[in-house]
C-alpha cells in the first residue's frame, strides 16, 4: 500500500500469456527473435527480460519457451477462459485436479517421447 495510483487504461487481454523470471532470464533476447507475432520487445535496460508489449497477439505456440537456453526463465500461461476447463480425474481415487489449482499435486517429471 502507499504506492501511487495512476490513471491507466484497462490491461490488455489476455493479461499475461508470457511470464519471465527476472532471476533466471539474462536478457539475451533470443525469444524476441523467435516470436513470430512480435509479442516481445527488447528491454531498454540491458540484461533485463523483454517487455511483453503485445500480449493480445500471442498465439500460444510456446516456441519462446522451447527455444530459450535458460530453463524456466519463461513460462507460457493460457488465458483463464481456456485454462479453467483443463481438469482431470485420477482414475483410481476419483480425485479432481485442475490447471492452476491452489494446492497442486507434485509434478510429473516424465519428459515427452524421445
Amino acid at each position: 500500500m502507499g504506492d501511487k495510483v495512476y490513471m491507466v487504461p484497462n490491461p490488455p487481454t489476455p493479461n499475461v500469456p508470457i511470464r519471465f523470471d527476472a532471476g533466471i532470464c539474462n536478457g539475451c533476447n533470443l525469444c524476441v527473435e523467435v516470436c513470430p507475432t512480435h509479442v516481445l520487445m527488447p528491454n531498454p535496460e540491458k540484461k533485463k527480460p523483454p517487455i511483453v508489449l503485445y500480449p493480445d497477439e500471442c498465439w500460444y505456440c510456446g516456441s519462446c519457451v522451447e527455444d530459450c537456453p535458460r530453463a524456466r526463465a519463461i513460462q507460457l500461461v493460457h488465458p483463464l477462459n481456456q485454462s479453467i476447463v483443463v481438469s482431470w480425474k485420477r482414475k483410481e481415487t476419483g480425485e479432481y485436479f485442475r490447471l492452476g489449482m491452489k494446492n497442486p499435486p507434485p509434478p510429473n517429471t516424465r519428459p515427452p517421447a524421445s
Partner: protein
Amino acid sequence: MTSWWDLIQREAPLPEWPYPVRYGEANEVATDVLVLGGGIAGCHAAINAARKGVKVTIVEKGGLRRSGQGGAGVDHWQAACTNPCSKVSPEEYTRAIMDSFAGYDCGPLRYVQCQESWDALLDCEQMGVQIRDVHDEFEGAAFRDDQTKLMFAYDYENRHTLRVHGHNMKPCLYKEVKRLGVQICDRVMATSLLTEGGKQGTRVVGATGINVRTGEFYVFRAKATVLALAHPRREWIFSTELNGGCATFADLNIVGDGHAMGWNAGAEYAMMERSVPSSGGFAYIQYGVGYPDNTWYGCTMVDAHGKQVPWFNRNGEELQTVEERFQPAPGQQFILMGGGLVGGAIGQEVTGNYLDDTLPERIRKGEITLPMYADLPSLPEHERRAIFGLMVGNEGKTRVPVYENYTRAGFDPDKDMLQAPVMPPDSYRSPHYPAGTLVPHWREIFGGGLVVDWDLRSSLEGLYSGGRCVYGAGEHAGAATSGRYAGRRAAEYAMSAPEPVLDQKQVEEEKARIYASVSKSQGSIGWKELNAGICRIMQDYCSQYRNEEALKVGLRLLSELRESELTKTYAANPHELGRVLECHTIITVGEIVIHASLARKASSQYLNFYRLDYPELDPPEWHKLLPIRLENGEVKVRELPLDYHLKPPYASTYEDNYSAHCGL
C-alpha cells in the same frame, strides 16, 4: 516490470520504439527466385530452389526460425505413400482424396504430395528431425516397423501416415535455409506483386514489402516468384480479447496476403466461395482437452460415471477392441485421417473409425452423462504414450503449452483422465471437441486459392505456389511437398527466363498505399476495430446463407470501407502499420470471396455453400470450378472441369503428368 501496463505506471518516460524507424527508406533486392512467405512451404521452396544453384531470397513477416502454421512443430506426416512400409500407392491415395472431396480439390498438389512426401521427410531427417523410434521406446508396438523403426498413425495396416518427432522441424529448416546461403529478409511483410509493364495478367517480375520493425520499404526484382503465404484466417473472425492471437488455429500474421496480392496481379483463383463454420475464438486449448480425434485419435472416452462410449467403423459396426480402431473396416482398403481432412471430406470410402456419432441424442436421453473424460489410463501403454508423449509433445503448440504445462501441474496420463469440455449436446456430433461449439456465421475459408498447372505455376508467368496459397486443402506434408516442387520448377524457369524489368509507376503507387496510414490524426480507429468491422460485413452479408442482393450489399460496404474508414486508420509504429496493411488484405480477400459467391448460382454441400436464391443442392451442371480473376480491374469468370489436370493439354493419368513435369 515486464508489461507495457507496468511501464506506464512509473515515473519515467515511456520507452521509444526499440528499432530505428525509417519509413519509406528503400532497399532494392535483385534475385533469381523470390520466395514470399517463410513457413513450411516457403522454406522447402527456398531450399530446393537453392539446390538448383540459383540465387534465392526468402521474405518472412515473422521470424523464419519459428514462423508459420507449422512453425511450432508437427506430430504426423501424411501421404508418405512411397515409404518402405506403405501399402497404398500415390495414385490410390490421390484418387481417394479427390473422391472424398467430390473432385473439389487440387489433383496436381495432392499427387505431388503422394509422390514426394516420403522423400521430403527423409530430407528433413538429414536436416536433424527425428522421424524414427531411434531409442526403441515403442519397441513391439503395433504401429512400429521394427526394421526401419518407423511409426505409423491412424491406419496401422496400410502405413501411409507416419508419426514423427517434429517439435523442432522449423528450426531445422531454418538452419538449412541459412546453410544454403539463401538471403533471408526477416520481419518483412510482402505487400504486392510487381508485373511486367505494371499490368494485370502479365509476367510477375518481383514484389514489394515493408519491414514491420523499421518501416523500411523493399523492392524485389526476381526472375521467378513463389507465393507461399498460406490462406486467409481473419475474414469472418477477429477478436484478441479471449484467446489473444489465436481466434483461429493460425497466428495473427496469417491473413491471406498471398491471395490479395495474387488477385491484384491478375492471377486466377478457385473455390473461394467455400468456407466452414468455426467457434470464433471460443475454442479450447488446441490438443489440450480430452477428445478422440486427430492427435488424440483412438483414445477411449468415458462419461461422468465411467461408462465407455463405443467406437464404430465406416460399415456402422461397433468395435470391440482398442486395436480395431487403427484397422480398416472389413472390405475397406484403407483409412485416411488427420489434418487437412478433418471435417472436410464427405466420401465414405476412406472414412476412419469414429466415436459414436449419436452422442447428442444419447446425451439428451441421459444415456451418457457429461462431463466425459479421455480415459488414457485404460489404453495399452504404447497407445497412451503415443497420444500423450509422442503426438502431444511434438505437434505444433503442444510441447510446451500442453505437455510441459500439464505434467508440471501434476497431470499423469498413466493415472489421470483428462476431461472433455462440457458443451451443448449437438457440439459432440464432431469428435474434434477442442474446436468448441461451431457458429454457422463465424466462418473460415477452406481450400480457396490459386489455380495451378502441373508445374504448380499459377495463371501468371513467373508465379509459382505451394501450401495453402494453392486451392484445395492441405496440411504440413502438403505444404512441404508442394513447396519443394514449386521451388524446383521456379528455379528451372528462372535459369532461362529473361531479365525482369520493373515498372516504376507501379512501385511508386504501392509505396504511396503502404505509408498512407502513417499519421497521428485524432479520432481515427486502429487496426483491430477495422478488422472486426470487416468481419461483421462478412458475417452478415456473406455467410452460411447467401443471396445476390445481400452479397452485393457486402461488396458495396467493403468498397466503401476501403474509401473511407481504411484511409483514416491509424498506425503508431511499423508493427501497427503492418497490421493495418493486413486489413487491406482482408478487405481484398472479402471481395474475392463475394465475387466467387456471386459466380456460383447454385448451392453445394461439397463446398458448404448455400444460396437462398438458388437452393438446389449440387445440380450436375454446376459441378465444376469457377476460376475468377481481375483483368483491367474487371472481374472475369470462366468454367473449368474439376479434373482439368487430367485433360488436354495435360496427359490423362497422374503418373504421366508428374513424370513430364516434376523435373527429377
